[in-house]
């Protein structure tokens, strides 16, 4: 018996796509690489958009930030779609267990009325902030022209919708799924003085046109103060009000925020390191928006954790930004 080994037909004639090989050499590429680099159209666009007199489709000048190559901004998590949904499916499974546990044991409805009201007033209205974040990230995903960057933003857009849905479910748990608690909570968002600076800030971000400015404001400055304040400091504070079970229902948000720091940090780092002009532009935006984010959260901190907690977080944000040569008004900084 002879064994015929047809090496010439089994051996690959190339290891990866040309556009990947031009960046990384012709060697086996990761799924992240093949899914993320140079997929979007770059040139020879046929028609100018009817809705924008200044730019072409996929126009890199939709932001004031200039990069030699936007693909220098990558995702440290290496999320392509499959990796992303796989990761989130695991997170949602854990969240589902917590929600099921809470519901079965009536852990929220057993809380004193006053505490329930605090949850509806101080925590649940954040679902509206999440919807704003969802809109902003969808806009960014539509405006960015490098897939490594745009995909991180569409994942974030969907995450924010999901977080808004988890917050809404807390209210549905409180009112036995009638929607009454959500109506009450939305009333606070619309009318309560406590929320007006935040609502104004969210509405102000919805008219920001420069997508990089928007990702900085939304995903770095606002989130950088809001998530630690609400899901760490306020979480502890709620625990002190005997509402520590709420903590189970916001675990997703804590895990999510910790993870999101990885890509937001990586993005800011690369962008400001690119040029002096970028650094200056980002610094100008930090100067403009960071105090607004701080002021928008003040009433919430005052009504719950106390202002010191917010100041402490502000200092942490300042330390974080300092690593990228950016200055902000941290209290202790």
């Amino acid at each position, binding site marked *: 018996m002879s064994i015929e080994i*047809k090496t010439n*037909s*089994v051996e690959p*004639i*190339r290891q990866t796509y*040309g*556009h990947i090989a031009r960046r990384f050499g012709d060697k086996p590429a990761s*799924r992240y690489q*093949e*899914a993320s680099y140079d997929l*979007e*159209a770059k*040139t*020879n*666009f*046929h*028609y*100018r*958009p*009817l*809705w924008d007199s200044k730019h072409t*489709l996929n126009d890199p000048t939709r932001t004031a930030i200039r990069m030699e190559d936007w693909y220098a901004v990558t995702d440290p998590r290496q999320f*392509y*779609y*499959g990796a992303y*949904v796989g990761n*989130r499916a695991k997170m*949602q499974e854990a*969240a589902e267990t917590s929600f099921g546990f809470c519901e079965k044991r009536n852990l929220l*409805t057993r809380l004193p*009325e006053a505490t329930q009201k605090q949850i509806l007033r101080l925590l649940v209205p954040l679902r509206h902030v*999440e919807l704003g974040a969802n*809109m902003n990230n*969808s806009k960014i*995903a*539509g*405006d960015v022209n490098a*897939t490594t960057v*745009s995909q991180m933003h*569409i994942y974030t*857009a*969907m*995450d924010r*919708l*999901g977080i*808004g*849905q988890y917050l*809404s479910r807390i209210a*549905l748990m409180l*009112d036995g*799924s*009638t*929607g*009454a*608690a959500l109506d009450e909570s*939305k009333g606070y968002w619309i009318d309560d003085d406590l929320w007006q600076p935040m*609502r104004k800030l969210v*509405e*102000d971000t919805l*008219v920001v046109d420069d997508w990089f400015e928007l990702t900085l404001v939304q995903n770095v400055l606002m989130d950088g103060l809001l998530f630690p304040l609400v899901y760490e400091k306020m979480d502890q504070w709620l625990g002190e009000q005997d509402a520590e079970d709420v903590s189970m229902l916001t675990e997703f948000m804590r895990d999510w925020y910790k993870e999101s720091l990885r890509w937001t940090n990586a993005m800011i780092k690369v962008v400001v390191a690119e040029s002096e002009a970028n650094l200056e532009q980002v610094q100008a935006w930090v100067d403009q928006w960071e105090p607004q984010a701080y002021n928008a959260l003040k009433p919430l901190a005052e009504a719950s954790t106390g202002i010191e907690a917010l100041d402490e977080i502000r200092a942490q944000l300042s330390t974080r930004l300092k690593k990228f040569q950016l200055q902000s008004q941290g209290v202790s900084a």
Partner: protein
Amino acid sequence: MAVKSKKLNLKDKYQYLTRDMAWEPTYQKKKDIFPDEDFEGIKITDWSQWEDPFRLTMDAYWKYQAEKEKKLYAIFDAFAQNNGHQNISDARYVNALKLFLTGVSPLEHAAFQGYAKVGRQFSGAGARVACQMQAIDELRHSQTQQHAMSHYNKHFNGLHDAAYMHDRVWFLSVPKSFFDDARSAGPFEFLTAISFSFEYVLTNLLFVPFMSGAAYNGDMATVTFGFSAQSDEARHMTLGLEVIKFILEQHEDNVPIVQRWIDKWFWRGFRLLSLVSMMMDYMLPNKVMSWSEAWEVYYEQNGGALFKDLERYGIRPPKYQDVANDAKHHISHQLWGTFYQYSQATNFHTWIPGKDEMDWMSEKYPETFDKYYRPRYEHWAKEHAEGRRFYNNTLPQLCQVCQVPTLFTEMGEPTKLSHRQMKYEGERYHFCSEACCDIFKHEPEKYVQAWLPVHQIYQGNCEGGDVETVVQKYYHINIGEDNFEYVGSPDHKRWLSIKGKSSDDKTERAKRDAA
């Protein structure tokens, strides 16, 4: 908390979990937050009438999509590990994948960008969320297609630079301009174009019979991504139908605007799919269903039922539908003949169909194949056998709108080209049909900008004046590897070697040439 009132049903609960998160802004003007919503003339009086097309919250979305992805990647891994490319019906089949990766996959990415954009443009939160979900799905398709083809790219030519080619290669300006047209339009037109006309009315023709054909040709990787993508498509199609009904119900003034968009986008989609017609009839060595049969089932039958349903809104079937229905007997053959003669400038190979295939076409196209198309192949096969493989050495005239060469014939007159021309502001423009000319007349300011590849070559914008330089340098098509006739190509030789036949197997070649 005292709970008295009734529990929410699924629909209302979903509403609370999506659009109830929105609010009426007071610190910024609504007009400034949603500046793109009005200019198209579509009147929306009440966004709360929006019927959510599917009620998938993010937790369920992550769960189901992760399950789909797990299955899909398990098959990709198995396919690569087992060198699945060796088990396909014939290497000619891979040419369909080359066209798919360069022509279709970049559109999935464009759809991702387009839906992310409209996912922000509407003031109705229900519509925004539905669009965003489609945006991320489209990103999925763009990426899974790269992964599905990754293994083929290692073993065959022509798959190596899809997005780069999509921006430049002459025939790829057909799909590129189609999506550029939709993305440069306003949000309502975009949805009518892509969600309704393309996804609902036409994509079945691409994804259902063609993917079934992939299975029939032993390509498990493609059929799996195709069907897995199409499972998202079922949601997208639901969105497509809901959006049309919603716009039509909102205001009677919307009806004529939507009708014109349906006319335009049906036609543009039909022209785009002419590429798919030849993939089905010519590039699947094992054939499942002819293009004309697929057209009958997925357009005439399903589209017929759909447009009957829309009658109550005052919508009629697309203008020039009769021309498209008549063309089902011709376009796959006309397109294949075109690509056959321009194979020197494509990233895939062409060939003369074998005798069995021609007999199959005679059976499927009894009125047209033997009369009009078989003689072409017999003539070209003879020329090839005598050492004169036919290539057209001039460049073709392109339609100003669809950008396909002006190759189509008049309805009922299969030997007469259906060319049209007109003058606009002193410039001459040429079209493949009355329908494309109509589209131009409605929005001439848009179509005068078309980046027509043939004209761009002649203007000297493609790195060279001769076809060879353009093809090699500007298109990244490797001459002698990716292009020209299939018989004798490196792909062909490799395939023969995989199958244990010598590459100068005269019988194989003679058999084909005799056809």
